[in-house]
């Protein structure tokens, strides 16, 4: 594929050459992301696993041995190991039952379990809740979290100050929480500190 990554530069991976690494990981990130998403369709989890894998690779780059295979195979080995660790982590943990509303109800007090995010209905509920927000709020949430832009970039794009972006984001989060709670069928006061 990329010429730079022909066999002779494999050794550069182990040596930690910055240019080769940039080339290498920018090619691998989407692949790894896809691999994790196929396993668990949860973008946040996939991002985290990609990140963990890349950092494992960077920190262990000295142990990459070109004579034993390509760097691609090597980094996928690390990724598989991370999948196994994640599976083990999950196995030792109770997972959610069908009702997601009670998790959404408590989103400001407890971190959401991954399993909730991997249920189809969760995305449906969130889409519906998002669509009920003011358009400005929708835009800011999507650019921030889906596109992953920084507050400064968002400020530039929609032509307001960075500070205004922060307060808009703050308000948008609160409204989204309110919408989500309204859509949860149970009573909405549940908060456990």
């Amino acid at each position: 594929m990329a010429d730079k990554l022909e066999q002779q530069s494999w050794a550069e991976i182990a040596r930690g050459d910055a240019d080769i690494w940039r080339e290498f990981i920018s090619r691998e990130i989407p692949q790894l992301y896809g691999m994790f998403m196929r396993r668990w369709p949860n973008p946040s989890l996939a991002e985290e696993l990609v990140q963990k894998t890349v950092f494992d690779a960077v920190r262990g780059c000295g142990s990459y041995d070109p004579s034993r295979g390509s760097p691609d195979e090597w980094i996928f080995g690390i990724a598989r190991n991370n999948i196994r660790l994640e599976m083990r982590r999950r196995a030792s943990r109770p997972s959610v039952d069908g009702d997601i509303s009670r998790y959404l109800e408590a989103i400001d007090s407890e971190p959401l379990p991954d399993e909730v995010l991997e249920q189809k209905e969760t995305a449906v509920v969130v889409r519906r809740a998002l669509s009920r927000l003011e358009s400005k709020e929708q835009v800011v949430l999507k650019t921030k979290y889906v596109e992953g832009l920084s507050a400064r970039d968002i400020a530039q794009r929609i032509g307001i100050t960075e500070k205004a972006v922060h307060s808009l984001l703050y308000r948008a989060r609160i409204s989204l929480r309110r919408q989500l709670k309204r859509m949860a069928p149970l009573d909405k006061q549940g908060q456990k500190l």
Partner: protein
Amino acid sequence: MKRKDKNLEKNISRLVKLTGDSNEPSEAFSKSLINDALSELAKSGKGRQRERRHKFTKIRWPRILAYAASILIVCGIVIALTMPPQKLGELGRSAEKMALKQGVYREEIAGKPVAVLEPPKPPVSRLEKAKVAKFTYGSKLVAGSRITNAMAAEAPSTPSKSRFSGEKARRLGSCGKPEPGPGGYPMAHGGTTPPNGEAFDGVFFKNYGVNPFVDTEDDHLSTFATDVDTGSYTIVRRFLHDGHLPPEKAVRVEEFVNYFKYDYPTPQEDVFRVYAEAAPWKFGTGRKNSYLLRLGLKAMQISEENRKPAVLTFVIDVSGSMNRENRLGLVKKALRMLVEKLREDDRIGIAVYGSRGRKVMGHRRLDEKDEILATIESLHAGGSTYAEEGIRIGYEMAESAYRKGYINRVILCSDGVANVGRTGADAILEVISKKAEKGVTLSAIGFGMGNYNDVLMERLGDKGNGHYTYIDTIVEAKRIFEDNLTGTLQVVARDVKVQVDFNPAVVRSYRLIGYENRDVPDEKFRDDKYDGGEVGAGHSVTALYELKLWPGKAGTAATTYVRYKDADTRAVTEFKSSIATDGFMPLAEKEIDTGFESASSFDFRLATVAAEFAEVLRKSYWAKGAKLSDTLRRAQTLLHERPGDADIIEFVDLISKASQLMKKTDVELSRTEDNANER
């Protein structure tokens, strides 16, 4: 407050991300990750260079290296002269590679302090993989047994550092990989690792380890406090019905065994009687000549009319979380059931806590049943969880309504006390055990699952000299409040402790199955200040020991001592009974199974199957090789003998559910391995 905001932001971030359609990482994410990774690379690169320079300036080894090199060259020439030319070519190539790699090699050493994490594995063959897997399994076992030893040295109810570290060690063991320490991975945008690095289990259980085999010559005494709780079984039932395997630490074997009713004859004159039975048996594979000993302790029965009148103070959690799954609804149903079953001379008072604790109803006699039922009906949930205040108010009420000669009990109904107030759990526990001495006891009844705190509820019941149950369904509520109300309310013996003295001439080693968190140091058995277990009227306690006997020896295998305080007078009683082994016959491994079936009673087999189920679920080392398919077959045989027994029908159903779930997990694991290999 800060934490709350963080949680909200993170959750919103993760939720909104779900609405993106693309199956690719966002550009911003990739960009920032690349930058982070490269700066990390530069950092570790600097570390490597510094290290390398260090080596070269400080250690003047070039001469030694030169010597080594010349020796290598000489060797090379000798080999070259004695080898066929084809192989020689190969050798030349690898020597070239070696020379190239010299730099790499040095980096590898230098890089180590930076690369704290498990070195990434280059593609390995299947065989090597298997070795790796085996190794992690081994290290897990080591960690597990270390906890048990640490536990044995400690008093059972004080939380301590070493227990915590034991747990941590176990976690490390089971992962086979250290968790990222401080300064580990930077946070992903809305990543799943919480700030403190803890996995965010909403449900709290504690791992107390597994009792090991003990050589009788080293320690011939085994001492434990009785436990009549059944919470663990009902919690596991809940997990399995929801389609999940329970976490190992939620499984307490003794609570599985004690869930079932055994047909011990009720003592007529004494408070207790001990029953013993033994038969050849083994859990899992690879053991010969092992026996199972069942000890049953049966308490006297008290009829409903003879039960002491009760002053009950309910402290009910009405925080917002009690709305989930209609937990409060279940509490109300259970209470209504209880009210119908109580007598006119009993009294009930109710306190609740949400954001604040408050008294809802002062104590009323049961002849005002309608008012009581109306109050129960009026309870509703909302607010946070200020349990400390609720419990305090409950105790104040109970004390002012205290009546001598009555059963005075506070009954806490909660999904676990997440926020106990400013003073923390230890302060509450201390208050509770002081009040228990004065005669106001506490029972903890658990409801709900999402954020259930098993550890605290169990300790509350234990310290309060009451007991702890978990109610998952209305059927379970019926079992506790209707079928067995007298046993639930009226304690016949306090601080019950059991000591089994094994005869080293007959018994080579023994293992107490379960009761890990009820361990009592041998020398504390006759210390009457040392807390034991409480046993209600008609309750029975069953303990199983696995034994290895010296071949061909007969005689007294063990003597059982039971020590307890009278529930009213506090007078201490101790009695003993011996267990002989004339009937034991050494058996070959394959005979054990059939030998057990024919040599043991129905109850014994039921207790054994319950223990085996729990041992497999908690992945006990001592039951390795045991298969749930065998457990299921044994349970089905039991059902065949007693068709229509509701408890056993359910038990069979649970075992088959668990066995399917285990198969599923195995298949998934191996599928990932296969996928991994295909790539």
